[in-house]
């Protein structure tokens, strides 16, 4: 008896399920034939660890772009969908993330805080026939010796940022000829300084190298490095010399924290930092922010374009009034690059998408952005923003000036 009731109930349920599935199938099938399944974009970025803000802010920017695009009808009438993986600042974890996304059918990737992680991921991306847009990774090798056609970059390259800096300094501080450096004691740190000095020599016949201080990445106590710099400076350095700071993350903050008692910031006429992100130093040091210029490829106040106005408005609406930083913008820009590439390729097939990277032009926050054919690098400007302490304000700091340096047609 009980078995009979159960069988009857089972038949009823099965019938209902089939009917629901049939209705659903018609509905979703109808949609699928009209709109197709969502196009999945995979974001691999740091969501944990010391520079987690790059990835978490980046994700906010990407989500704003995806919301804007989906509200406007999607790409090729299909919605965009974001799938995220934590880069963990680890080449091993990055490669695993690439393979995980590939196994989920997500083949259009962007992100990467660390160039080392991106360099580890690129061969796997190529092997699996995926594409990768570097949102933040800036290493020259990604664009030169390790370049693969599957790769494109909206992040400014080291070469771009370091060639823009001397142009900015020539315009804004033509009287400062002697430059000192705090940089990391590893390949990129030395390369960055060498690029800077080469460009400065080309711009300024009176250019001189002052004291060079290279700091190991493992160093925690920076006092010996700071006093080593200070003891080499002449008495009038505060009026006549500049310092180029090519550090990022904790080291950049610790340099100014540990240097404050020695009046480090006052010993230079100009402090130019290019390693860390826009606002990173000021947001951490707040009212103790030194008067300094930060070079990066985006500042939300710098560009009066329709796209940027829309981005800032939508970002602030989605994030309790907080304006976007460069990391958010770079991810936002990556999504729009994919939108343009998919539309031009008329497909989300990675092979077809990568084929249109070179020479692609799209509307970005800074205006029309073109991807170079030779290295798939976006030609983006550099912004130089002056930060200083503002103890009276809620955030403790303010931006007092922004200068935009546009790149040459090929860089």
């Amino acid at each position, binding site marked *: 008896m009980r078995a009979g009731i159960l069988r009857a109930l089972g038949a009823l349920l099965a019938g209902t399920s089939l009917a629901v599935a049939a209705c659903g199938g018609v509905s979703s099938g109808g949609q699928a034939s009209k709109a197709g399944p969502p196009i999945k974009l995979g974001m691999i970025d740091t969501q*944990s*660890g*010391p520079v*987690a*803000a790059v990835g*978490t802010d980046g994700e906010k920017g990407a989500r704003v772009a995806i919301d804007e695009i989906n509200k406007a009808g999607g790409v090729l009438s299909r919605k965009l969908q974001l799938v995220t993986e934590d880069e963990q600042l680890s080449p091993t974890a990055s490669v695993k993330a690439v393979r995980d996304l590939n196994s989920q059918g997500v083949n259009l990737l962007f992100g990467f805080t660390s160039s080392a992680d991106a360099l580890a991921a690129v061969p796997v991306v190529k092997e699996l026939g995926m594409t990768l847009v570097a949102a933040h990774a800036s290493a020259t090798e990604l664009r030169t010796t390790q370049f693969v056609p599957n790769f494109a970059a909206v992040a400014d390259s080291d070469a771009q940022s370091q060639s823009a800096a001397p142009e900015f300094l020539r315009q804004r501080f033509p009287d400062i000829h002697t430059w000192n450096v705090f940089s990391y*004691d590893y390949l990129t740190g030395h390369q960055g300084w060498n690029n800077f000095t080469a460009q400065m020599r080309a711009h300024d016949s009176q250019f001189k190298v002052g004291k060079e*201080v*290279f700091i*190991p990445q*493992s*160093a*925690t*106590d920076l*006092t*010996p*490095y700071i*006093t*080593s710099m*200070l*003891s080499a400076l002449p008495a009038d350095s505060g009026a006549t010399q500049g310092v180029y700071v090519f550090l990022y*993350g*904790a080291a950049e*903050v*610790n340099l100014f*924290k*540990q240097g*404050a*008692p*020695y*009046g480090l910031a006052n010993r230079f006429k100009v402090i130019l930092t290019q390693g860390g992100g826009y606002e990173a130093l000021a*947001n*951490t*040091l*707040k*009212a*103790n922010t030194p008067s300094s210029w930060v070079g990066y490829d985006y500042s939300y106040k710098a560009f009066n374009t329709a796209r940027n106005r829309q981005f800032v408005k939508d970002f602030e609406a989605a994030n309790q009034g907080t304006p976007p930083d460069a990391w958010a913008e770079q991810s936002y820009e990556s999504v729009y690059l994919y939108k343009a590439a998919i539309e031009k390729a008329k497909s989300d097939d990675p092979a077809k998408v990568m084929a249109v990277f070179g020479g692609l032009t799209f509307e970005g926050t800074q205006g029309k952005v073109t991807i170079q054919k030779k290295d798939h690098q976006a030609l983006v400007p550099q912004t130089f923003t002056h930060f200083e302490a503002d103890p009276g304000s809620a955030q403790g700091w303010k931006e007092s000036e922004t200068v935009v340096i546009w790149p040459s047609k090929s860089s």
Partner: protein
Amino acid sequence: MTAILLPVVNGVAFAMLLFIVASGLTLIFGVMRVVNFAHGGFFALGAFLTFTLAAGARLPMTEFALAAVGASLICAALGMVIEVVVFRRIYHLSHTDSLLATYAALLILQGSLTLIWGNKPRSQPLPADFGHAVTLMGVQVASYNVLLIALGLLVAVFLWAVLIHTTMGRMVRAVASDRTMSAALGINVDLVFTGMFGLGVFLAGMGGALASPLFQLDSTLASTLVLESFAVVLVGGVGSVLGALIAALLLGLLNSFLVAFDPVLADFSLYIAMAAVLLLRPTGLLGSAAMESR
């Protein structure tokens, strides 16, 4: 003269911070024979708690000191709870088990820091009146570094006085030497263990509190100074507080002089000191003496 004095002062100041952290580590190992991987987690917790208690503001020295002591006491209390709930159950197990347990505690502490304070880095300003440099024998020294030197020496004297000249210190040394015999003589071994673990963690928290104005506060803080602290314990001789003091001075000065005179080697100073000392004395500088004193 300045060329010599500057690295000396810089090296001693960093050594004292290192000593405060490492002394807690060596005390815990000396008494309980536990290599406490969670030490770095308590160091970071001390720094973050100080930031919270000080509201991230530049405070007068007395108020900053209260925040630092408060943070250290909270760390000590949490440490004692963990000792009673977790570590007490693993003393009889192998070193591998205790390593795993303390490493798990470190991961939990690190995860908790991110959950409570988030991923955005924080910064605690130096106390008011300690944001400048003073001139000592013609050398410019950060006044906060002078404070660190004084506090490091104070901690060294305090630990020496407590461990050598008090009844409690004698009980601690007795338990460290032979816990079964100590228990037979009526010493409450569990209480000594909990107390010493609390003291060790208090020192880790104090190290973090004192370091908070010098370092960016982020989730990696738990690994800041930890490698150096383990090196200090090994070079000084495990369980020896005096050895830790000497080793911290050795490492701090070596690093400071190498930065000043041979920067290429500075990144290797830790390994140079460890290799040199452990080759000559595998038990560390005062390792044998420490063992004999038990």
